């Protein structure tokens, strides 16, 4: 008797990049090619067949990934964008084939890579529940039994016979999630579907997810929301460049994830090509430092004295005059939270050396735990010199900002504000 729910054995997936160019092939070429590869794959397998056609512009989205998940385990799958998380979920959901390797799944799988797959705007809420349920693999009887629960969960009773194209986006997402939430597979594969909807709805989704986990069902869960992973999953897998680099308790693996983020980003800034400006001043790298101890930080904690340091270089190796530098800090939805600038602090540099490090000090960082990114901007003598969107990212972890050991709830609030309370008899 085996207790394994998912067994992944040496799974790899290769993608051909530069498909845009291949599309210009003539139809005739393609037909010949397909016929040829049909005959070829008959004997040798598709992997070898595909490799022949241009091995140079291929990329391994997943490389030799192996792991096992037991029944009842809730496993978080984390990693940066492009690490291969979605590819892995797509293979396990049988949406795309692996190039090599094998996976075995024991039990009925419900996979939720998106809420509302197959929803049709012209159909009513009622009709979409049936359609979407069927798409997710529910039997008609099952949908009929759960219909009232689904409608109640989505809170759309009044509009159930209205075409969903007339729904507000909130109602639409609620209905879509409600159908998915009533799927009862033995194994649940969930992509980042919880990042939709408003805060109240997200809380509801997370609640539903932890119910599922508590019921003892097996869940494989991809998220960028580390708090959710920490909260829901006992175990986490960290993917990087298509390989598993860490597997263990979610706390440890999440820590490793943050370490990797900061080391990776600090090296790549100088090589970025998606930047604007004449590059008279060019940012080469950044580092997050603890202001007091001047040490590089893997992750930043709330309330910490933070220094953001940038190494820069002048293109023509001459000192730079009249330099303005700005950092725009964005939240997890890429919304601008604040703007740190030499201009507003009244500290534009009259002249700086041709190379060096510019440091911005932020005492008692007033950010809640979560994921942040920042843009970098600079002008030299009024001309844009270097401008990089999403130049880097950092994670703020729990820190004792108030000295009380507590932080406010994270949904809805963006900032920590120093404050105190008292009682008087009158104004």
């Amino acid at each position, binding site marked *: 008797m085996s207790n394994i729910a998912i067994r992944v054995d040496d799974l790899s997936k290769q993608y051909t990049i530069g498909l845009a160019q291949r599309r210009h092939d003539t139809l005739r070429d393609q037909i010949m090619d397909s016929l040829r590869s049909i005959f070829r794959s008959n004997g040798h397998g598709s992997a070898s067949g595909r490799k022949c056609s241009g091995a140079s512009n291929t990329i391994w989205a997943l490389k030799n990934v192996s792991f096992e998940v037991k029944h009842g385990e809730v496993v978080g799958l984390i990693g940066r964008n492009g690490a291969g998380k979605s590819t892995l979920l797509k293979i396990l959901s049988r949406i795309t084939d692996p190039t090599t390797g094998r996976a075995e799944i024991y039990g009925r799988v419900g996979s939720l890579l998106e809420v509302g797959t197959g929803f049709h705007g012209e159909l009513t809420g009622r009709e979409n529940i*049936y359609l979407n349920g*069927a798409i997710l693999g529910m039997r008609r009887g099952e949908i009929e039994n759960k219909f009232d629960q689904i409608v109640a969960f989505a809170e759309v009773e009044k509009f159930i016979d209205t075409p969903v194209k007339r729904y507000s986006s909130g109602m639409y997402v609620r209905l879509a999630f409600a159908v998915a939430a009533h799927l009862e597979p033995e194994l649940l594969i969930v992509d980042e579907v919880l990042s939709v909807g408003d805060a109240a709805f997200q809380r509801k989704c997370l609640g539903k997810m932890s119910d599922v986990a508590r019921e003892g069902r097996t869940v494989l869960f991809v998220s960028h929301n580390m708090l959710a992973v920490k909260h829901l999953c006992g175990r986490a897998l960290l993917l990087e460049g298509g390989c598993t680099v860490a597997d263990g308790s979610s706390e440890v693996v999440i820590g490793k994830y943050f370490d990797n983020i900061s080391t990776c980003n600090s090296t790549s800034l100088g090589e970025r090509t998606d930047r604007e400006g004449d590059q008279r001043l060019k940012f080469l790298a950044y580092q997050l430092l603890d202001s007091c101890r001047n040490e590089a930080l893997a992750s930043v904690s709330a309330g910490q004295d933070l220094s953001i340091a940038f190494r820069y270089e002048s293109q023509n190796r001459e000192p730079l005059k009249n330099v303005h530098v700005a950092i725009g800090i964005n939240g997890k939805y890429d919304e601008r939270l604040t703007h740190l600038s030499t201009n507003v602090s009244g500290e534009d540099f009259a002249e700086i050396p041709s190379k060096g490090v510019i440091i911005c000090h932020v005492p008692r960082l007033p950010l809640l735990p979560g994921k942040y990114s920042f843009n970098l901007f600079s002008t030299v003598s009024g001309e844009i010199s270097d401008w990089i969107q999403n130049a880097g990212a950092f994670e703020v972890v729990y820190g004792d900002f108030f000295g009380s050991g507590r932080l406010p709830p994270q949904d809805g609030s963006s900032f920590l504000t120093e404050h105190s309370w008292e009682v008087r008899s009158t104004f």
Partner: protein
Amino acid sequence: MTEVSSFPDFREPTVVIEPRKSLLHLDLKAIWEYRELLYFLVWRDLKVRYRQTVIGIGWVVLQPVLTMVLFTAVFGNFAKIPSDGVPYPIFTYSALLPWNLFASSLARGTESVVGNAQLISKIYFPRLLLPISGILSPTVDFAISFVIFAAMMIWFRTLPTWGVLALPLFLILALLTALAVGLWLSALNVRYRDVGHTIPFLVQLWMFASPVAYPVSLVPERWRVLYSLNPMAGVIEGFRWALLGKESPDFEVIIISSMMVTTLLISGVVFFKHTERTFADVI
């Protein structure tokens, strides 16, 4: 709450995921398991098709009737094309029945995969369901047009013969033709959207290569075999024979057409199954 010990004991994996190697892995079992989804896909198509139109289902009636009127005027009256001794309206409508079914099945079948790109990239189901559902939904239109045909038979005082019992066979042949070509085109359309653009042109050309407006007897004898390679020639010939009791059904045409459909269908399934594993990556 479930106890750990009560987990189902799976000795055999429910699903094994591997690179697919075999050439013909039809997986009819999976299609059968997903029959409800097939039903819902067809149902969705029917529900959505005439939403927010003024005359709604009236379009199903108007399209063939107007085509028939036009053909009768142009080909029957002006060009004086012979109609095997049957009133021309009935003669051409009996061909428009399978032709319209085929044309819209083919168009829907071809668009079915690309039109459901969102489903393809987000969820698993047997991909063959898409072209199958695409060819099935126009059968409802066919049924409605058929009622009109029955009314016309009464009006022109034409009686069906025993041949009418063979009609389902030719109906299936028409659907299989649409499926066979639709499998090829829908799979090609994923990579080359050009295919979608050629459909209206292809359908028009194909109609003139089929005996919709004229009888097969007009085609010179020595071209007959070549002509019959068009499966729709056999289908339409079969429909006319079954519905109008035309004396000499050209069985040679029907048999060659059927063989052509079989070849196209088998190769279509192989091609579709071969390309479907890359659908999600390319679409």
